[in-house]
């Protein structure tokens, strides 16, 4: 499962969660899902991306600053719930 959500009004957070340990390990080892990969997908310098592998949750997590704060005039997704689609394009070899 891939999802996104506000982490407070000023940050967006992404969770990539796996059903089984083998798939998670394969993705983790591949290096395809990384801080740099997330940064590239959202046009950010890598140092603006918080990035974690969460082994016990079989999940990868990344957080980025919101480009527009929640509720600001041009904010287009109040909950930040539909911002993950670019992560679905990452190809794992």
């Amino acid at each position, binding site marked *: 499962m891939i999802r996104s959500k506000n*982490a407070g009004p000023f940050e967006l957070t992404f969770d990539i969660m796996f059903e089984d340990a083998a798939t998670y390990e394969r993705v983790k080892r591949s290096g395809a899902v990384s801080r740099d990969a997330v940064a590239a997908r959202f046009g950010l310098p890598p140092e603006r991306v918080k990035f974690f592998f*969460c082994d*016990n949750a079989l999940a990868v997590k990344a957080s980025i600053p919101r480009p527009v704060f929640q509720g*600001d005039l041009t904010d287009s997704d*109040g*909950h930040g719930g539909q911002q993950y*689609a670019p992560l679905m394009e990452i190809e794992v070899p």
Partner: protein
Amino acid sequence: MNEMRVLSPTGVLGSGFVESSFERALASRPHFIGCDAGSTDPGPSHLGSGQPAFPRVAVKRDLRLMLLGARGLGVPLLIGSAGTAGADFHLDWTFNIAQEIAREEKLSFRLALIHAEQSKEFLNQRLREGRIKPLDPAPAFDGAVIDRGEHFVGMMGAEPFLRALDAGADVVIAGRSSDTAIFAGLPMREGFPAGLAWHAAKILECGAAAVVKRKTPDCMMAFIRDDHFEVEAPDPDLRCTPQSIAAHSLYENADPYFLRESSGTLDLTASTYHAVDPRRVRVAGSQFDPADIYTVKLEGAEKVGYQSIVIGSVRDPFIVRQIDDWTARLHARIHARVKQIYGDALTHGQYHLTIRIYGKNGTMGALEPVKETAAHELCLIIEATAPTQEIASSIAGIVRHQALHLPIPEWSGLITALPPISIAGRSTASTSTTWSSPMTRTRCSRWSSMRSTAPASPPCRPFLAADKRRCNQMQIMCPTLKRALPEDFGLLLLRAIRPPNWRD
């Protein structure tokens, strides 16, 4: 006590829960019931306008069952972040619902209201003392932010809940609270380790969200013991697994391992998760690192303006293909027309136009990596934001007409480009109009953390005695004591709710 049982009926008061799950949970005799009633998720307008996010009838249904359940068992009921944003208006709104239920059900209990709204004078004073600083990545916080704000709330920790219970409350309705603070205080008070108490609280505050497959919003139970806690959803169809519980700490947190609270930081780096059975998980190893300085997170909302909205759609492939140019020209046309009408009375910076193009980048805006749309039709939502509803509606009227006939090079003659399907706000005229109440737009003002006066002392003082005066007419006793606290939470009111026929 060797086990503390905690029931969270649902993730948000008003979102609902299954009554049979709740009954099952009550049968396991929880020591208290807690429920979060708010969030910043629905956006800053709730704090700015005072409107709760959930319908009153929905909150009343949930609160009725919780009050009956808690009073039936004789255990505390703790509600945090009342009415979505937890400002005074929201607290009163929730209090009013509780009164109504008490009257209808002939319930008798003592209720504490904990206020979280912060006055501008108090915030200015704290600012002058250098005790407010913006949280990263929130923008700068200064006196102008305070001046512009509609309402500010301070997010309380676990201490005010405990103080209210100490003061004799059976039911606590609190303003803005950390979700976890609702659940963490009582287990710590009973001597259970803070790391376990806060971690269990983090899982409980979302109700059944941490199960493998949540069907609907529902109940969750935690069983807190000396060196571990267990979680289980009362609905026998719902399963918690080590992975589902571990994964829950990721949810809506920027950092999955360190969760910041007023009084310290929950550290999950050493947490372990084991299946007790296919539905129940045991958690151990969670740590809590107390902070040197007690901090209170401030949330504020400022009014940005009034809005009117035009919704329309385009199907012409020429327009779809050049939609960015078309909307840029529309922008320019509208600004020119506004200037013609208002002259210097309304400058460019005093109003704002937002054009959202659904089918292209309406959802992701600047983050959208797909630059060329493959859609054959597009929906446009054009928002006019202005200092008054009248001006916003006037601009929406201009938008409607300019968008309707904005030409493209491919066609000559008068075209009908963007027939509006809806104009909301107070619209001037349209072929198909929906009306809504005037809309205000509120922006998240600033979040910042505020140091409280004394790190060692909890930020709220209790009231010690309940007024025993009798109320003949209504079920409410007058507030026993009411005074501004020198600390970070405005007021704590302790009230007794009694049915009409109650006698001392």
